[in-house]
């Protein structure tokens, strides 16, 4: 994919961390967040602080993340509903009796879900899609995965190109592409779009084979990642994991 949907080009230290390091760090960080006991409010504060620090190093504004985080909206709904539908002892919040357990569960989803989305967005904002696949390739993702993912990213361009061509062809012939119209036409045309893209995709696949493609990107041997870069790239995850360890320590 030439321009990732969420990728923000940049040359910050965060952008430059090798993708395999970033992937592992992101997974470790989210796992640390999820494993943190929900009553350890302070730990989530530390996690958020770590995420903010990474953003400032990456040079991506907070507002950008805030707008993208709405993908999580359905879960906010769940978090809001839980206090009302859960069982167990009740507490009063603003004069309304809600389930104490539900309240905590709601908070849990809200805090962990939000942090999870923010961490994943950080990864997406600072890593090119194809580097993500390269990172997975270096982390020994199975061959089938790398093959499908590589073709998938290539084909997203093909599909976008087909959509653009179809749209231009329609406008030039007097169609009025208002958004709703377009959504309807796209829904109806999904099968056609699929076919057009597939036939082009077949040719693209042939062209790749013709140049000796063997299912993965010819990345060459990965430049060895020094211990220092692993530590630097992994440090945010390390802080989050420490917060988890302290919070989860049986006292």
């Amino acid at each position, binding site marked *: 994919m030439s321009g990732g949907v969420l990728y923000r080009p940049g040359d910050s230290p965060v952008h430059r961390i090798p993708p395999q390091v970033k992937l592992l760090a992101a997974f470790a960080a989210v796992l640390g967040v999820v494993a943190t006991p929900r009553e350890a409010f302070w730990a989530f504060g530390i996690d958020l602080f770590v995420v903010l620090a990474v953003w400032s190093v990456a040079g991506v504004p907070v507002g950008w993340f805030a707008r993208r985080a709405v993908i*999580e909206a359905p879960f906010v709904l769940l978090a809001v509903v839980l206090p009302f*539908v859960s069982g167990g002892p009740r507490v009063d919040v603003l004069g309304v009796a809600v389930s104490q*357990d539900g309240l905590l569960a709601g908070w*849990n989803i809200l805090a962990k879900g939000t942090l999870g*989305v923010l961490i994943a967005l950080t990864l997406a904002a600072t890593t090119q899609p194809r580097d993500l696949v390269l990172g997975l390739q270096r982390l020994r993702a*199975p061959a089938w995965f790398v093959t499908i993912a590589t073709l998938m990213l290539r*084909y997203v361009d093909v599909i976008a190109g087909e959509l653009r061509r179809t749209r231009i062809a329609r406008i030039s012939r007097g169609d009025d592409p208002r958004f709703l119209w377009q959504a309807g036409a796209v829904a109806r045309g999904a099968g056609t779009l699929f076919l057009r893209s597939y036939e082009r995709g077949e040719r693209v*696949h042939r062209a790749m084979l013709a140049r000796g493609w063997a299912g993965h990107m010819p990345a060459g041997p990965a430049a060895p990642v020094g211990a220092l870069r692993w530590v630097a790239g992994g440090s945010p995850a390390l802080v989050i994991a420490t917060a988890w360890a302290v919070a989860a320590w049986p006292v």
Partner: protein
Amino acid sequence: MTASVAMHLSDGVLDASTSVLFGAVAVAWLAVAAARGRIDVDDRTAPLAGLLAAFLFAMQLLNFPVLPGVSGHLYGGALAAILLGPWVGALCLSVVVVIQALLFADGGLTALGANMTNMALLGTAVGFAVALAARGLARRSRAGLLAVAFLAGLVSTVAASAGFVVEYAIGGQADVSLGGLAGVVIGVHAVIGIGEGVITALAVGAIVRVRPDLIYLVRTSETRELVAA
């Protein structure tokens, strides 16, 4: 269609051990799928799986409202099963789920195992089972095939959401009444599944007319008659 609560689970809905458990379930299932459904670089399955993955990914950018608070996009479990068969279909969908989580933050990273189990594995397996059971109807006529595609889309969506109910029962973070939860989740997804079924049927209908050879379910000598019908 997804983007509802029960699919693309976010982090924090399931506890850590359940997340890891379903990660293991997904990995084991995918290992079997990879052994049974070969992806050969030189073969047609590779571009078809790659294109379907890209297509589902692109369709996600075209969200449309289903119910207030629930927007939908083609999720594709049944479509993948019908086009690629249950094994390669599962591989294809799992790539979509992983890439969506990494590029769009859609679905939590720790919930990847659960999300793959629901959408990539349960959804395609159930979608294929339905299509297989009704294969006689699918081969009888074009309308029959579309009806089967619709049904497979509908049932696979409900099955994927039922997977969520099971996971929540094992590792959910609040004690809500499971019966109530199941009722709501499955009820909502029955509605969402209608949309999924319609789009699946439309897509399969368009494809079978021009390239019946691309459809795993009917990739036999009977395809020619089907096109003629």
